[in-house]
Each structure stands twice: as structure tokens, then as C-alpha cells.
């Protein structure tokens, strides 16, 4: 199923998720992650000057989806950790609560917009007092000194604080999932088994890390690698399945998560 994601159709990170889920037949599992990542990258390209707020929102939603999807893609066997499972449910409930809250305020905002539009149909009287009463009006500058005026001027002309966000984490992604799959297919048969940690040593960019992780999952889906994690938070061992050739790998054109 293809879901078109446009950054202009949502406001706030949970909005996208809301839209996707509430569009009835869309299962989160079926939402194409690559569509979202691609849209994000395209948006970054398009925005010569980054709209940081928008890109950050985008990143956040992408991260949430990645997290949820990876959880579902990961094999669940009978050795699953009860605590992990419990934590997962707890996290889902939290997310659900947040989504409900988000929806509540989104609807409240729609209502505010309607109220404001209705109120804007009337304009207030603001002609003020007639000239004949002006002499009665108190001197508004009583107690204001030239120094106060200077302070007010500086206050008004001071550069507005620049909205600063650490842009490191939203640097454009250099590698696509398809690229990573290709590289892994070329590299892994030679190396046999390697930990994910080692595989991604030197990568500090979280999104790039996610890209590599998705690539590994893709290979796992295709049945050419095995994944093994001995303990929670322990190293993930990725091993090329004996007998599988690099040629068996379907070099995804566009990753369809």
C-alpha cells in the first residue's frame, strides 16, 4: 500500500501518525517507511534554508515509526523477555495517550479558529475620545524620562533571539536504505559474521544508524542473513547465511519497509 506523505498536510509529529492511523484501512505495519524518509529527504533538499521546526517534526515522526516498525519486524520467539514485553505495552499506552491528547487539542484548535473567524466578522469601535475632551486626558508621558525612552528604544530594536536548534542531527542523510543493502550484500559474505556495533562503528548520525539497521532487517527479511542477540541491549550479531550468495539479494530500488 502506498501512502503519500506530504509535509504540508500535518502539523506536529503526532499529527501524521494520527492521520495515517485514522485513515481506516492503514495498518501502521503497512505504512511505507521509505515513503516517509524519502519525503523527508526531498523536503530537506527543497528547503534551501531549513525550516528547522518542520524538519525536526519530520524527523521525530520518522523516528517513532521506525521504532514501532522495527519492533514488529523483529522476530518474537518464546524466549522473549517479560519485562521487555511489558515495557513495550506501557510505551504503546503512553503513545496512545499522547495521540489522544494531540487529537483533543487539534480539535480544540479547529474550534478556536472557528470562534476567531466568527469574532473577526465584527470590528471594534476605536475612534477614541473626541478632541474636545483631549485636554482632560492625563499626560501619558508623566514620569517617563529620556533615559526610559532610550531603554524602550533599545528593547524594541534589539535583535530578536535567534531560534537555535542543534542541526547536527538533521544533517541530510548521505546513504539510502537501498545503498546500505547493496553495500552489506557486497561486504557481508566476505566477513561472515559481524556485530551490528562493529558494522556501524564510526557512525554517529542516528538516522544513518537507523538506515543501516533497516538494511540489515531487509536482508533478514530476504533470508540471507541471520540475526542473533544474546541478551537485551547486548550486541546484535549479523551473520551471512552459509550458502546464500550476494546475487540472491534483491537490491531494493526503493525500500518499502
Amino acid at each position, binding site marked *: 500500500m502506498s501512502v503519500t506523505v506530504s509535509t504540508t498536510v500535518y502539523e506536529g509529529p503526532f499529527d501524521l501518525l494520527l492521520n495515517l492511523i*485514522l485513515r481506516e484501512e492503514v495498518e501502521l*505495519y503497512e505504512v511505507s517507511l521509505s515513503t516517509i524518509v524519502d519525503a523527508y529527504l526531498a523536503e530537506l533538499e527543497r528547503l534551501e534554508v531549513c525550516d528547522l521546526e518542520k524538519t525536526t517534526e519530520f524527523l521525530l515522526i520518522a523516528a517513532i515509526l521506525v521504532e514501532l516498525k522495527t519492533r*514488529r519486524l523483529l522476530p518474537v520467539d518464546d524466549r522473549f523477555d517479560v519485562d521487555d514485553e511489558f515495557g513495550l505495552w506501557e510505551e504503546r499506552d503512553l503513545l496512545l495517550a499522547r495521540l489522544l491528547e494531540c487529537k483533543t*487539542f487539534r480539535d480544540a484548535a479547529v474550534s*478556536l479558529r472557528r470562534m476567531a473567524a466568527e*469574532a473577526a466578522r*465584527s470590528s471594534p*469601535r476605536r*475612534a477614541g475620545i473626541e478632541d474636545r475632551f483631549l485636554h482632560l486626558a492625563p499626560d501619558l508621558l508623566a514620569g517617563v524620562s529620556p533615559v526610559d525612552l532610550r531603554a524602550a528604544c533599545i528593547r524594541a530594536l534589539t535583535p530578536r533571539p535567534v*531560534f537555535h536548534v542543534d542541526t547536527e542531527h538533521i544533517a541530510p542523510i548521505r546513504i539510502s536504505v537501498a545503498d546500505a543493502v547493496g553495500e552489506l550484500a557486497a561486504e557481508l559474505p566476505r566477513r561472515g559474521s559481524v556485530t551490528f556495533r562493529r558494522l556501524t562503528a564510526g557512525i554517529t548520525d542516528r538516522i544513518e544508524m537507523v538506515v543501516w539497521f533497516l538494511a540489515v532487517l531487509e536482508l533478514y527479511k530476504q533470508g540471507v542473513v541471520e540475526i542473533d542477540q544474546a541478551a537485551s541491549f547486548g550486541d546484535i550479531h549479523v551473520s551471512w547465511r552459509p550458502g546464500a550468495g550476494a546475487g540472491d539479494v534483491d537490491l531494493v530500488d526503493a525500500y518499502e519497509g
Partner: protein
Amino acid sequence: MDPEVAGGPDDGVRRAIEAILMVAVDPVEPNLLAQLLEMPTRRVEAVCDGLADWYEAEGRGFALVRVGGGYRFQSHPDQASWVERFVLEGQHSRLTAAALETLAIVAYKQPISRAQVSAIRGVDVDTVIRTLAQRGYIEEVSRDPGPGNALMFGTTREFLVRMGIDRLADLPSLGDFVPGPEVVEALERGLLAGPDVVDAEVPVDDRS
């Protein structure tokens, strides 16, 4: 004939109020009117409400409304198209959906800190908060007594005026917006699909 029209017991009060509201720039609080006219606030309110009803019944092109804690004259909403022709200067620029959502959160949860708004919206709200403050819809109202002493924001009188309401209590109840069971269910279905569902779709056989 309506007692507000002429000669009634409140006739002098009515005329004074009409004159004062005609020169006022901001909504005039009933308390102030009561103080100036030396009479109970309740009587002032009764006269004002009577006047408002009378203008409406008479089909005047203007209205007397209670907004932002006071009374004011304004053009009648159904004359909006004529007033727009006359007022050439641009109307208030519209708020973005993001700004409105933030505004809704501040309105219903005030006093609230930037970080708290941020937590609900899931994004950094610094820019939006600054825009809203600059437009005069919200302002710093206090400091969080807890650690960090975060600035707490609340809505302004300007906000009430822009929403066309008299006080915060006139906002629709937040409960009206809590999603219905069908939405909750849809969200649950979307989010909580358990491992069972997933299992069926993952190529289990290939796990060796």
C-alpha cells in the same frame, strides 16, 4: 415600547453608557461603569444587556457586545462585507494550524510552561510561543515555583477579544473535544496490533 428606548427609569444610565462606550477604545469593564455612574454593577450589566438586545431587535448595523471582560460597540457581524470594503488595511493575519494548536494548549492548560506545551505537541515550540506572545495572545503570567523556575504562560485579554468571548470560562469545554470511542478504538487498532499480527506477515520459515 421597550423601556430602554426612552423615558424609562434607567434612561439616564442608558444614555451615559452609550456615550462612554462610543469614546472608549477598549472594552469597558462593568465595574468601571458602575463606579463612574455610582450604581451597583448588576444594574449596569442589566442596562447594557438590555441595550444589546434592543440594538439587535431593532436591526441596527452595529452591536453592543460583552467581550474580554467588558462592553464595547462593534460592527454587526452580518455587515462584515461592507466593513471589509471600508477597512482597506489588512485584517489580522491568520494563525497557522501549529500556532492555533499551541494556543489551544495554553488556553486550556494555563498556566503552562514552554516545556510542558512542547511535551504535548511533541515538538519544539519556542518560535510559535514567541509569535503568539508577540501577537499579544499569550503572555508570561508567573514562574513555576518548582525547580528551574520555568516561565509559565497564559492567555491575554486580547485573546479573549479575538475569540469574541468574555472570559475563559466561555471557551467550549475541553471535554467536548476528547475523541470518541471509535477514534480511540481506531488508534488502538493502529498502534496496538500485537506480535501475533506481525508474526503472520514475517517470513518465519526463513529464520532457519
